[in-house]
Each structure stands twice: as structure tokens, then as C-alpha cells.
């Protein structure tokens, strides 16, 4: 079953002579449990594609279907609620909220995703244990290493049981060992939960985790191929 479908999506920034087409007739489908790498040079449209997929940007034309619902047909409020429950994010920097502990960061996402507070706490504990960072639950983000922070971000992305995790350069600021550990955790936990993963990246080391690679150049899908590992 497809959790994300983009159908001939165009996205234009600016108007008139300054208009830039960030996405041109992009069509892409990602199924549950898939780990898809979105590769391409800087400025190719990877992040724009992730934002359109999450409903953070509306396509200028074309259609986006996320977890069974058409985003362009939704109001902004509906889109926000749908995103909170069905999408998980991992950003290039962990973007954990610095005034909250690791545990609170994850609980907050679970609650935003619709869980009751107690269930959110239980699921947070389970998720942090699965990622091997349960002992860090009461630490603040600035007390963590880069790799620990990204694993906490992975916990936040998956705690509410999303249909898809959208990750933007999740290993971009990590060394090889940490990056590999984060990618491995993200891939295995998402697969366990049947969540799809769409990763925008330059990091070729992630190819070994991908079930498919999609290359985007100048806002167009240049080619798509199953990863050979």
C-alpha cells in the first residue's frame, strides 16, 4: 500500500520573471516499509519535495496523497493535524527543543500525534530503549553527542507511529560511525513499524540501507532505481 503519492507535482517560487520552478512534474510513490533515498545536488529540489510531501508547502499544480488523504483538498488546520499524526521528521540537525529533556521532546511529539499523556510516556520509554538511549531521557540536548541527539530525533520521529518519516540530510552533521548507527536505527525501527522512510541526502553511505534510490535534478526526477546495496 502506498503511503505517499505525488502526481505530476509542480511547485513554483516567486512570480513573473523571478519565478523559479523548484519541482517540475514530479511523480513519486512510496510504499509502507520502503526506505527511499532522494539524491541530487544542492538546490535540486529535495527539501522542497519533502515539504510538499508533508503538506508544509502546497503544490502549484498536481496532487499529493499522504496516508490515504489528498493534501491539496485539506484546510491548513486539517493538514497540520494530519501531519502531526501521520508524519515523522528527522532534520539535518536534530532540532530537539533545547529547553526540554530528551524524554520530554519525544513525549511532546507523541502527544502532538494524538496519544494520551500516559501512553505517550510508555511509548517514549519503549522507543528510547529500542534506540539504546533510555539512560539519556532526563538529559538536555546540549548534554548529548551529535549521534545521541540524532538517535533521540529518530525516537521523536517514530514515537507516534507515523505512516512515513521524512528525513532531510539526517547524517549530514555526523561522523561515519554515528551516521551509520543513526541510519541503521531509523531503517530497522521504521521497518518494524511498517513506516516508510524518505531520506533526502548527499550521503552515499546510506545507499546500503535503501530499498530504492530516486535521483532529482533541477526539480525533475532524473531516474529511479532499486538499490543494489
Amino acid at each position, binding site marked *: 500500500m502506498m503511503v505517499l503519492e505525488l502526481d505530476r507535482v509542480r511547485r513554483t517560487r516567486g512570480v513573473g520573471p523571478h519565478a523559479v520552478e523548484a519541482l517540475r512534474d514530479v511523480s513519486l510513490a512510496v510504499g509502507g516499509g520502503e526506505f527511499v533515498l532522494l539524491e541530487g545536488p544542492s538546490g535540486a529540489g529535495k527539501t522542497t519535495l519533502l515539504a510538499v510531501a508533508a503538506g508544509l508547502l502546497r503544490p502549484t499544480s498536481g496532487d499529493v496523497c499522504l496516508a490515504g488523504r489528498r493534501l491539496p483538498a485539506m484546510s491548513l488546520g486539517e493538514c497540520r493535524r494530519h501531519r502531526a499524526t501521520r508524519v515523522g521528521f528527522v*532534520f539535518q540537525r536534530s532540532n530537539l*527543543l533545547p529547553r526540554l529533556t530528551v524524554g520530554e521532546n519525544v513525549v*511532546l511529539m507523541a502527544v502532538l500525534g494524538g496519544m494520551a499523556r500516559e501512553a505517550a510516556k510508555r511509548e517514549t520509554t519503549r522507543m528510547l530503549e529500542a534506540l539504546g538511549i533510555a539512560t539519556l531521557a532526563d538529559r538536555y540536548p546540549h548534554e548529548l553527542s551529535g549521534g545521541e541527539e540524532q538517535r533521540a530525533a529518530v525516537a521523536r520521529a517514530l514515537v507516534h507511529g507515523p505512516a512515513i518519516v521524512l528525513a532531510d540530510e539526517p547524517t549530514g552533521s555526523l561522523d561515519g560511525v554515528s551516521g551509520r548507527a543513526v541510519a541503521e536505527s531509523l531503517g530497522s525501527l521504521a521497518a518494524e513499524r511498517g513506516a516508510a522512510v524518505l531520506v533526502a541526502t548527499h550521503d552515499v553511505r546510506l545507499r546500503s540501507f535503501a530499498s530504492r534510490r530516486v535521483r532529482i535534478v533541477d526539480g525533475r526526477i532524473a531516474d529511479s532505481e532499486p538499490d543494489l546495496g
Partner: protein
Amino acid sequence: MAALIRKALSSRPARFWLTAGGIGVAALLVLVLGAAYRSVSSSVAAYVGQPGIDVWVAPGGVDNLMRSSAFLPAHLPESLATIRGVAAADPIVRAYVTVRDEADPSPAGHRLALIAIGYAAPTGGGGPPALVRGRAPLDSTDIALDRAAATRLGVTLGDTVWVNGRAAVVLGLTGGTNLLATQFLFANLSTVDGASGLRGRASFAVVRCTPGVQPAALVGTIRARFPRLSVYPREEFVANNAREVAAGFIPLLTLVAVLGLLAATVLVALLVHAVVEERREDLAVLLALGADARALTGAVIREAVTLAAVGAMLGSAAGLVLRVVLDHVLPVIPLAFRVTDAARILLVFAAAGIGAAAIPVARLRRIDPLEAFRP
């Protein structure tokens, strides 16, 4: 969830307490001015409204103790005493005198201009409303000084001072007689007469009613008998004096209160603005994750109101401490706080907090969740 969002967007403790301290100082400024005004007002009321005086008789056209230069004949109280319903009538001489410390009578020494009240000591009406230490004047060389005046002069009980060049001994210290700019001095009629050259005159006459006689009725009787004099029941005379004090203080007090409020509002606005700017990335992340913009707005406004309220409470607490400290260390500055003043400041500052949050909240609504993707 709301609690977690509030925590996520809260300011750092050091910044919070520094700003709350700044707001507290603004609140303290407003409170101190109000308390000083109230203290002066209550000192005047304590004297002119003291028990034992039911009616004030003044020269025609004079309606307050503070600003008058007309006089009554010294024998007027004897005439008043013959009126039915008058239990006692006593003269009061009010004059401004210069008091010097005996230890250093040179021009460079301590010197104060005080309001001298001469009365028929020790039992006549119009004496000190409250004695903090010592006793009321008896002999012609005895005086009772306001406690703050004694502090300013550097004298205490038993010390000799010079009142318009005449020696007098401080035998009593009075309370509730500090008008901030000047203080009261109490002495025998003859002492003040001699020091001021007002022999044979009185500034006011104070009248005590016989039991069962209403002051208002007695006022009517005295007015009928002496139509060219001004006669007031005690409460009216108190109100006249309070109005006279307020006339000098209120415009300045209002101006400083408004400035203090503006300063506090700008402080709150600056902090909340800084919270929004500093937390811009976090707000973008929260919006991207699916947090409701209204919940974020609520958290920002709550932070602003909390800050303003904490600041106002700090200011009020500091005001109470300051009052106690000043009372012991520098009684020259009297402060009379009221809980209602603190409550009013709290409400106004909380409202200012909401107002101050308006601009940051408007900026918050313009934050793009896509900022969360920026490296």
C-alpha cells in the same frame, strides 16, 4: 501538552529573573512614589484629624493648615469656650522656624526649616498626634520633634537645639508628623510665640465638643456667632489638607507612574520579542511537527504575563522591605504602602504584559515552518 510547549518556549532562568527584576524596579518606583504621597497625606491627616479636636476654626478664607498666613486674635478661644456645646477651645500657633543643632550652630551646620506648632501644652488640643519616645513639652524650653527631623539634625532626646536662635531641649520624638519636605515641631505656645514674633495671635483655634453635641451642629453655631471666620468639622478640614497635599504631588506622581509603566511594558516587550527571536527555530520545528499556532501564541502570551506579574510582585515585596529598612535607617523618607496599591500595579503590569506580547505574537505568526529544514 500545553505545559510542555510552555516549557519549550520559556526564557532562560537568568534572563527571566533579570527582566523580572527590571520590571520590579519599575513597579517599585511607582509604588514608592504612591507610598510617599500617601505617607505625607496620612501625616497631615494624623495631625489635623487627631481625636480630641472636633472643630477647626481658622481666619476667614483659610481652609487648610499647610498654606495660610492670616491670624486670629489670641483671645478668640476664650470667646469660643463660652459657646454652648464647647467643652474646650485652644489656640494653635503655626509658624515656620529654623532649627539648628547646638553642636554646630555655624551656617555650615545642620539646619532645618520645620513647621512649629505652638499649643497650650501639656493638656491643650493640637499637640503631637503620637509620641514615639519621650514626653510632650511642658516648659517653655521643651520641644517635641518629629523623629525624622531629629535624624536629619543628628539629635536625640535630651539634646539642645536652637529654634530661631533660642535654645530648646528635645524631650519628645513624634511619629506620623513627617511631611517629607518638612516635619513638625511641637512646643509651648509661648515658645513658638517668642520664636516667631507672633505674640497675641493664633493661627487656628481647635474646639472639642461636649459629650452629646454633634460637631456639625456646633460648626453652625460658631459660624453664626463669628460669620467672618472659617469653621470646619474635623473631617472637612482633613479633606482640605489632603487636597492641598495632592495638588502638589498628583501630577508628578501620575507622570512618573506612567513612565514606570511604559518602561515595564517595553521591558516585557523586549523579553518576549527576544523569546520569539531566540526560539524562532524551535517555533519553526514545533509548527513543522504539527503544533497548533494558537497553542504557541498562548504560551508566548502566558510567558509575557507571568513575567510582568512576577516583576510586579518582586517590586511590591521590595517595597515592603524598603519601607522597613527606611523606617529604621532613614526615617526621613516615610513610605505608607497599601495592599491595594500592589494589587493595582499587578493588574496593570499583567495587562501591559498582554499588550507587550502583541508584536512578538504577530511575528510568531509569520514564522515559516520550513525554517526547521535549514541547516
